[in-house]
């Protein structure tokens, strides 16, 4: 009797893996479809009588960007100061604590600025978008849009996607600046230099490529956060419990997508 049970359990495990892979492929396909549909409506919307309107776009930018400035600023200062403390502590062992500016400027611009901002926005706005869309699915608001002749991708996804693609790089730029100010406030007295000298050294440490690297990543993160949230949102099942589930999964999936993409991006651009 043992053998069939083992086979049964192995079969179930295999079936479960198969289902997960199928779901993942489905989600990727749906995400790609939504992204290209969004591009289509951005380009063709006006000529198709379904133009993308400015008001919802500005509303999204306000929610994703402007309202996030205080928390992004606070975390960015903390990151800048923490990196500086760790940097000075490590580099002191080699008598190279003056190199901390180079280390902080490069790591904040290329890595921590886009990554921390992306993670924060995924947690804050990705989850909100998933909750909004899943609630709309459950309360038939998406169906209502369709029967009114309004394309839901154009009406809901495009403002969120475009808003995110404008706001996330801007927030990242802001985060980099604030992190460096935080770092300067800590580092300047520690290594006996001035704020002006600190930023002169920052200017010498990073170039346009480093900034482009960070901003390009944040643009990719913007697409990932939005598409993951939308895919999770429209896959909702059940009522309020389902909304809670997709909201959580949007955060987990969004952050996972950001971190993995970051690794791939760094591998491809620094190899």
């Amino acid at each position, binding site marked *: 009797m043992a053998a069939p049970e083992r086979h049964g359990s192995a079969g179930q495990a295999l079936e479960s893996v198969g289902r997960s892979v199928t779901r993942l492929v489905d989600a990727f396909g749906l995400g790609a479809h939504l992204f290209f549909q969004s591009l289509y409506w951005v380009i063709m919307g006006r000529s*198709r*009588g*379904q133009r993308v309107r400015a008001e919802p776009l500005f509303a999204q930018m306000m929610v994703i960007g402007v309202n996030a400035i205080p928390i992004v600023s606070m975390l960015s200062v903390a990151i800048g100061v923490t990196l500086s403390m760790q940097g000075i502590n490590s580099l002191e062992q080699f008598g190279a604590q003056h190199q901390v500016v180079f280390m902080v400027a490069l790591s904040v611009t290329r890595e921590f600025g886009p990554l921390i901002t992306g993670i924060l926005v995924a947690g804050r706005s990705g989850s909100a978008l998933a909750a*909004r869309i899943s*609630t*709309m699915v459950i*309360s*038939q*608001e998406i*169906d*209502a849009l*369709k*029967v*009114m*002749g*309004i*394309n839901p991708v154009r*009406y809901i996804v495009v403002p969120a996607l475009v808003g995110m693609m404008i706001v996330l790089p801007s927030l990242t730029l802001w985060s980099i600046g604030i992190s460096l100010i935080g770092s300067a406030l800590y580092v300047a007295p520690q290594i006996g230099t001035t704020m002006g000298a600190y930023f002169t050294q920052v200017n010498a440490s990073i170039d346009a490529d480093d900034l482009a690297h960070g901003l390009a990543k944040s643009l990719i993160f913007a697409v990932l956060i939005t598409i993951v949230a939308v895919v999770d949102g429209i896959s909702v099942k059940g009522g309020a419990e389902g909304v809670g589930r997709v909201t959580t999964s949007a955060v987990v999936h969004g952050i996972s997508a950001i971190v993995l993409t970051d690794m791939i991006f760094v591998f491809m651009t620094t190899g």
Partner: protein
Amino acid sequence: MTHAHAPQQPVIEVRNLVTHYGERRILNDVSLTIRQGEIMVIMGGSGSGKSTLLRHLVALEKATSGSIKLLGYELGELNQMELYRLCRKIGVSFQGGALFSSMSVIENIILPLHEHTDLDRMTMKIMARMKLQVVDLAPFEDLMPSQLSGGMIKRAAIARAIVMDPALLFFDEPSAGLDPVVSSALDELILELRDAMQMTIVVVTHELDSAFKIADRITVLDKGEILTIGTVDEVRNSSNERIQNLLNRRFEEEELDPDEYLKRLMGQT
């Protein structure tokens, strides 16, 4: 009971509609014709396929086979843009209202105008207020959907559905969740809409009193098949045992097979 309106040319023609969800057949060879200006009630017990049929009629779902002609357009042959244009000629009132929770009542009603016309904001507001007066909700235009009662939500949804002056109006369970007084008032409103605006109206319901009150004709669905299509009197006096079971409200109890239900729930059939 037949209303004074003379039946005219067909505006909805459903031919041999078949729909499957996975292995399960939801609609089986459904054919019906709905004429201009009539109120057609689609009636049936839970799981009879009436809501699925409605979703097909408003192009929210595609059938496995068969055809639907709406206002002379074959739905299956329309591309997306043509379908969106056709959607402007229909209005749908969903079971739960489907009002946008982030918008006030009047913003909900303005939305189709805002999206499909170039009217200025003031004109859109005036048009929306006219529809709000029709459904007797004028004083509540600035409230949010969460501040409305069930009956008010349905009325606001109707105002939104008629704001583009559609030729066809669809209702999904208009009486669901309402007390008899509010439900009766809503029935009156549906009749008024037909009389005042000459709309063709399709109502999906399982409420017999409501169906008998408003229908010109009734389509009775059971297990995805049409049992009969006829006037209220024809349906009432039908000798078909399944129809009589439905009318006597014994339908759902008799049809509920626990094993079958659990299998369906697990997706095994």
